[in-house]
């Protein structure tokens, strides 16, 4: 019974993934300038890959990669700062209102991502509510255009977009924490703050890591949040924008495909680190 599903995934996930490799390591037709995928690994040529790698390490694409990493890191930090207290409160302190809070935390999952971004585009217009509030508080110019390529707009947009996906797994992890360990720490005389710092926080590291991976992977491939919130300003361009441009805006799918492979290589390193940390905490937990 698992056969139809498996065949589906082979035909529409495995083969397409292989097509990325075949195109990235394929040739370019010398006359038509179209891409000629190399379906056999024996026929692979690395010229496009070497070319793209050269542009990433020390070339114009390097800046885009660094910017993507910085945006993702800043947004992840924001997710931790906002998400941890919210998840912690909901899991351990909300008491009888927990069901209600949880329902409100899940609600954004049912609202389309782009509609949530649209909401911010409305608020951040030069004559929008954000500027009205800021100028009422004498904090900023009345007519500042936030949608003109400001990096804080993109980072806040990423936080707003992804923090619900961060909170829920973290909530699940905090909710499963062993109450007895926390009580033991209190009974042995630790203050509630030092109990948090020395018991709760270390115990929640695996959940924190899982939540981070869940938001980091899509954020690194994001291209629509920054484009939508800045009107496609080149000052906030991310790796995803370059990939999308190579595939749809120009006829260089082989460069786009090799960029996807490089991005995935970076993400696999991050995933590998995550798996090592998880394995280590599980080992420590057992000894």
């Amino acid at each position, binding site marked *: 019974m*698992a056969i139809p599903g498996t065949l589906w995934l082979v035909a529409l996930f495995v083969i397409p993934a292989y097509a990325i490799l075949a*195109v990235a390591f394929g040739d370019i037709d010398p006359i038509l300038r179209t*891409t000629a995928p190399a379906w056999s690994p024996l026929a692979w040529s690395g010229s496009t890959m070497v070319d793209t790698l050269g542009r990433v390490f020390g070339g114009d694409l390097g800046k885009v990669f660094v910017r993507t990493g910085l945006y993702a890191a800043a947004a992840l930090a924001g997710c931790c700062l906002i998400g941890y207290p919210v998840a912690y409160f909901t899991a351990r302190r909300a008491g009888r209102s927990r069901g209600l809070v949880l329902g409100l935390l899940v609600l954004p999952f049912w*609202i389309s991502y782009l509609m949530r971004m649209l909401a911010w585009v409305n608020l951040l217009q030069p004559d929008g509510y954000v500027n009205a509030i800021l100028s009422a508080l004498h904090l900023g110019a009345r007519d500042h255009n936030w949608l003109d390529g400001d990096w804080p707009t993109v980072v806040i947009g990423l936080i707003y977009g992804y923090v619900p996906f961060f909170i829920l797994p973290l909530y699940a992890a905090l909710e499963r924490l062993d109450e007895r360990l926390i009580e033991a720490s209190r009974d042995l005389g630790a203050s509630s703050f030092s109990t948090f710092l020395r018991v709760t926080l270390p115990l929640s590291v695996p959940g924190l890591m899982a939540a981070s991976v869940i938001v980091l992977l899509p954020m690194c491939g994001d291209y629509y949040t920054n484009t*939508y919130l800045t009107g496609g300003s080149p000052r906030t361009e991310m790796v995803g924008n370059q990939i999308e441009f190579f595939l749809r805006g120009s006829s260089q799918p082989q460069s786009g495909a090799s960029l996807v492979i490089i991005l995935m290589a970076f993400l696999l390193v991050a995933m590998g680190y995550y798996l090592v940390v998880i394995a280590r905490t599980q080992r420590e937990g057992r000894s």
Partner: protein
Amino acid sequence: MSVGGYRPGRRLGPLMVITWLYVLWSLLPVLIAVRISFNSGKSRSSFQSTSMRWYWEDPASVWRDQALQTALSNTLKLAVLTMVLAVPIGVAMAIGLQRWRGRASRAANNLMLLPLVTPEIVIGVALFLVFTQIYSSIPRGFTTQLLGHVTFTLSYVVVIVRGRLLSIGGQFEEAARDLGATRMQALRLVLLPQLGPAIFASFMVVFATSVDDFVISSFLSTGASSETVPIKIYASARAAATPAVNAVATVMLVVTLAIVAVGGLAIWAYRRNQGATLGSAAAATGIGG
């Protein structure tokens, strides 16, 4: 945080303030966007007075603008057909993976989990390349979008249904077999009814995920005839947009919430009927999205 004797939910601590501020911050902008869809003026940033202009009065409203109509019907058709295809295939796959042991099963299981951790842009590029380079006989546009949506929602269904299968266990089916039911009868009369909540949850998650998708729809779109609501919202960044964009987004929001409410009610009614015997389907509804 107090030292000793913290009573949950009673005192107004800083954590509680942060949490409620967050909830407000996460939902208020969307409510304002909904409000703006009822604006009588052209502005998307400040509200003049309430009207239905951007729903059906204006030539550029949801009801009159041909492009918005196409986007709306594409999005709904895509979501419904994705549900029709992904849920049966996913349910069968979950049941199959549960029974089928061995190395091939483990491989299929890992394969099923991969789309969940692959960034959407990678799936989008992969599908774009495969439909332009290999499966080029399939008409690009709606058909390829449908195939793409089924591919990335399939894993959600398998994960949700498998959670339920684990909590049911094998004893009911065994009992049915001992009482003389054939394999198919045991499956149809005993197992499938028990999977009810997981199947409803899968329908809800698949619908919401398909309706929400931008990246895959956009990579496989061929222009105006295969645009969806998210693509329309995205395109409004460059064009001189009107509150009609808010209106079409609001329509989709209401439809999604209605589907989720119906699904939630169905699960609730099911569990009442069953006397809340097995497992928790509510947990399953929180998985995807």
